[in-house]
Structure formats: structure tokens, C-alpha cells
């Protein structure tokens, strides 16, 4: 895993819990205890009310494709072995929309409205990225 060459997320102190979660097989959604906002991406302070009284809820892992784009070229060299890459925006029932990749699928079959579920891939000892795959 240490030979992972692709860019790793640049973790901030206040997002560490998210990445600790994925490492432990949990997809966490940041929540605001004062205004009940569901927050993505995680912040130091709630973007709705600036509260620092923030927490985390574990997501179900289910999601729906809001949009997608299958990339065939034009990526940096470190991504070339992964082509085609299915970029996707997925809506979680917990109330957030995330950027991800749809994996373990025929790229031609991905479509808006498709049901997908989270799948975790440990890419280094510290970082596990959340991807999504079609629900079987």
C-alpha cells in the first residue's frame, strides 16, 4: 500500500474523525448539535450557524447517483492506469451530496438515479477512501 502514487486527501485537524471513520469501515456525516445541519464537507465550524458544537453520525452507506461522468482521458499520469474513471456525485439519505467514484461496475451502465452503496478501499496505512458501487 505504501507505493500508492495518487493524491491523498489533505486532512485537516477537524476532518481527522471522518478519515478515522473510513479506516474503521464507517462513513461519517458531520452534524451540528445546535441547528441540526448535516454538513459536507466537514468544517471547523458549522457553515449554517458557526456553531462549534459539532458531532458525527454514521451513514447507512446507501446513496443515489445525482450525476456522473466517465473520464477516458486528460488525467494526470498517476491516474492513467485507472481509466476509465467513473466520477459521480451521490446523494446520501442522511442529507449530504459527495464527490466519489463508482467502482466494481460496467462504466456504461452507470446512470442518474442509480442505487449505490459505499465500499471502502484502504490506499495507505492511514487513508481509506470511500467509493460507491451499484447495489447488487
Amino acid at each position, binding site marked *: 500500500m505504501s507505493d500508492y502514487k*495518487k*493524491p*491523498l*486527501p*489533505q*486532512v*485537516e485537524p477537524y*476532518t481527522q474523525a471522518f478519515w478515522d471513520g473510513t479506516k474503521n469501515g464507517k462513513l461519517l456525516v458531520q452534524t451540528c448539535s445546535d441547528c441540526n445541519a448535516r454538513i*459536507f*464537507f466537514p468544517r471547523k465550524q458549522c457553515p449554517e450557524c458557526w456553531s462549534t458544537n459539532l458531532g458525527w453520525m454514521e451513514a447507512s452507506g446507501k446513496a443515489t447517483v*445525482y*450525476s*456522473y*461522468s*466517465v*473520464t*477516458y*482521458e*486528460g*488525467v*494526470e*499520469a498517476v*491516474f492513467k492506469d*485507472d481509466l476509465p*474513471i467513473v*466520477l*459521480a*456525485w451521490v446523494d446520501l439519505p442522511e442529507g449530504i*451530496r*459527495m*464527490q*466519489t*467514484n463508482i467502482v466494481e461496475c460496467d462504466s456504461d451502465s452507470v446512470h*442518474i438515479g442509480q442505487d449505490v452503496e459505499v465500499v471502502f478501499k484502504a490506499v495507505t496505512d492511514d487513508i481509506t*477512501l470511500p467509493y460507491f458501487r451499484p447495489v447488487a
Partner: protein
Amino acid sequence: MSLAIVGIAEVPTKRDPERTRWDMLTEVCIGAIRDAGIGKDDIEAVISVNPMAQPQMALDMALGRVPEVLGLKGCKDICVLNAGGTSTTNCLRLAKYFIENKQAKFVLVPHTTVQSDIPTEDLINFFATAPLDMQWEYPYGVTFNGAMGLITNRYMHDTGATAEQMASVTVSLRAWGALDPNSIFHGKPVTLEDVLGSRMISTPLHAKECNFLADGAGAMVVTSHEVAQELGKPAAYELGHGVRFTGATPVLRDDPYFHRAYRESSQDALAEADLGIDDMDLRQIYGAYPFTQCSALEGYGACAVGEAAGIWADGRCGPGGDLPCTTMGDATGRGHTGSGVSMAFYLDTVRQLRGEAGERQVKNCHHAIVTTSGGSVMNAATTVFGSEPR
């Protein structure tokens, strides 16, 4: 509000590593000042467009080399502004401040960019990372094209626009470019089959619907409405302006294809100008990707939501059409000079309002609406120009 563009010059968009940034910059600055019919020492401020991915040139401009190289003895101050594709718009806004506060009678706004001497892999890296969030987007292989593919697919899903209709946007943009000696695609129109048959980059965007990076330079001299009238030459008079921010990260926006930003920014600009969208003779839309040409028309209220792609497909926005749009060609139809695309949009608008657009001239062009955007359309900055002051 009283800004007028009274002098312009441009180095045509092309890939020409023989020409340096300073070589082109000097030519357009002198050209714009001569076009305005004033002397070099009449320029009292230089507000430069930040050149993207060219850190040395950006620093040279930021630290005052432009007036020194040109010998602008009357220059009181300089500034470089960076907001990606809306950098030029910001330059005009600051110029307006200088002019309205009598700090400067004439302001020079220059841009220069050379991308053909930058290694391709570096450009891919720059344009992959510049607009992206390093934590939540970059690890997934998102690129500029990929982000715009995501938006375009959703736009097509919601409006019912077809792949053929979307490809027709590029056909019309390239048709304008084919008639434009300032376009890298001068004399090179494309057909629907050319667009749909070009390589798929990021669905639904084919290679010809993406941007071709190029070199170019441009400059404007701006002043007040009153001084512009005293000069006694055709000019472009700013009549109204509005802007809306959409957000930095595409996935987080609640206005995913910018209908609201186009609508509200154009309403503000038109209200200030005391004009309506149907009074516009020309619509100039800088979005760098074809769906923006449709989305902006719908946001402006020039047609109903869901109609714009069909209007483009009918050829109504291209040469000879009854709803001319983006005679400048946008980045896909003209070549992408980084932050210079918005400069070229204003230059082309001035040509149209002065009746100097050659084969692309829109008949009786007295009012134009221009929208520029920065980043991955983080904002929509809309300006109404007229051939006469209010």
C-alpha cells in the same frame, strides 16, 4: 456608474512559442493606447489580469514592471487581480473605482498568456488541481473536464437536451470562430459529425467540446462616459452590472448549472441599464463548456428552461441566426488563453458595438449582454454594454 472602453488591441489566439509574454504584452498595450487616440503618459493606472499558471509573469505584473517597460510616466499605481476567468471583470470594476474617484482619467487593462512553452503534464496538473478541493475531489481523479461532464450530464437529464443538440452548440461556436481572424480556429469550422465523432474525454463531453489551450494577449483602455464622448470615437459604454457567486466546489452547489446565477446577475445588470433581455442585440456567454451557452440563455430569460439546446440546434445562435450568441466563440470555439478568455470576450463585444466585427458583425448591434465566470463557474458576472451612453 460610467465606464467606457475606448481602446482595444489583441494578439490573435494561437500556439506560438516563438512569441514571449512581454513581446505580446508590449504590442497590445501600445496598440490599445494608440487605438484610444491618447498618449502613453495619459494612462494613470495599470490594472493587469493575472496570468494563470505563469508565476513569474504574475509576479512581474504584481510588482510594477508593466508601466516601467512601457514608459508610462503618468502612472500613479498598479495592481494585478486574480479571479480566474473573471479576472478581467474585476480589473474593470477596480478601474471604475479609480475613474469615478478621479484618481485616474484613463486606465490600462492588459493580459498576456503563453501556454505553449509549458509542458503538457504540468498544464494537466494545473488545470486538474486549480479549481479542485484537495481533500474531497482531487483524490478521485476529478479534472476540469470531468467536473464539467458531471454538470453537463445533470443539465441534460433535467432539461431533456440531447447529445446532438449539445454538439450543435460547438458547431455554432466554431462557425463564429471560423470567421474570426483572432480565433485559433479561423477558417476551421466543424460539423455535427466531427464533434460527435471526436474522442470521448469525460462523458458527455467529446474532445471538440473541451478546451484547446493556447497563447494570446489583449488590452483595453477605459475611461468615463464623459471622456469617451469627448474623444468622439465609437466606444463600448457600460450600462449595468450584476454578479452572483455559486460556490467553489461543483458538488456542493445548490444551483448546479447556474440558472439562478445567470438570472439574478442579468436582472441586476439589466435593471441598472433600464433595459430588458429582449433589448439585447448580442449575448456573449463565457462558460468554456457548451452547456453554459444553453443554461445562460435560459437563466437570462431569453427562452424557457429546456428550450435553449433546441434553439442552438436550429442554428439561431450562430452566424446568420436571429438570436446571435457568443460571436467571440467561447473558449471551445476560439482557443483557451487561461484568464485571457474574458479579456477576449470584452474585446469582441467592443468590436461588435463599434461595428468592426467583419464577417461576424451582428446587424444594428447597439446593446450586448456579457457574462464571464471564474474557476469552474464559481460566479456569473454579467455586464450590459451599449454603443451610446445612457
